């Protein structure tokens, strides 16, 4: 089955972001197709690259990025949510004249049109947050 996930939950604040990650991993393990991840609202922090996590704790952002890269998953960070929260990819960082991108390269900043597209192309859209 074809799934898309919408993640509103910030990492570490509630369990939802970690649950979403485990759900995504399970989908892939069970052979489902993950059409798109859409990080929205506080959820955009899951795509943040400039994070330092204690060694004995799970680094959610890194795990998301590894999952996305390993399985070549289409991952979108909502542009309006991301810019105001300081989660910028290379393109946005350059456009707004910041020296460095703060988002993992595995995700791309784009608009809500990508969410609508995911709704239209997925058998299931599951929300976390």
């Amino acid at each position, binding site marked *: 089955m074809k799934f898309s996930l919408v993640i*509103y939950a910030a990492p570490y604040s509630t369990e939802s972001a970690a649950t979403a990650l485990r759900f995504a991993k399970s989908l892939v393990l069970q052979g489902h197709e993950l059409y798109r991840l859409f990080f*929205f609202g506080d959820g955009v922090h899951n795509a943040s690259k400039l994070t330092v996590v204690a060694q004995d704790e799970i680094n959610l952002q890194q795990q998301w990025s590894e999952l996305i890269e390993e399985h070549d998953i289409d991952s979108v960070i909502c542009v309006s949510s991301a810019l105001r929260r300081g989660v910028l990819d290379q393109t946005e960082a350059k456009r707004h004249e910041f020296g460095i991108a703060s988002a993992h390269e595995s995700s791309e900043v*784009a608009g809500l*049109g990508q969410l609508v597209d995911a*709704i*239209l192309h997925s058998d299931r*859209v599951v929300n976390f*947050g």
Partner: protein
Amino acid sequence: MTDKLTTARPAKSSITFISRSAPYGRNRANLCLDMALACAVFEQNVNYVFLDDGVYQLLKGQDGAAIQSKTLGNALETLALYGIESVYADQQSLKERSIDMADLLPGMQLIDNGAISKLIDSSDTVFNL
């Protein structure tokens, strides 16, 4: 990624948004509105249900200026302009909060539990936040 937009299914999808958070204090009401508007802009059939504390979003006379916030009610008044005409306020939620229809923005229809169930059942995708 954006090229996927052009390959969207031709048929319209029926998407129901159940907004159950109060208008200020958290951003959930705004996230819900942004998603609903995006779906409407891409010409999908949008149903918008206000449930639980979500009915507070529909009160007349809101003014977000005092908290340097945009007034959500103003945006909700423009739903019809985006082609969102199926806008419902849950009867039970209004009753529990002693809110009369006269207190609400124009253009709202009342809905009860049974009708919400049917709406969910007939929708391709449901968002609940």
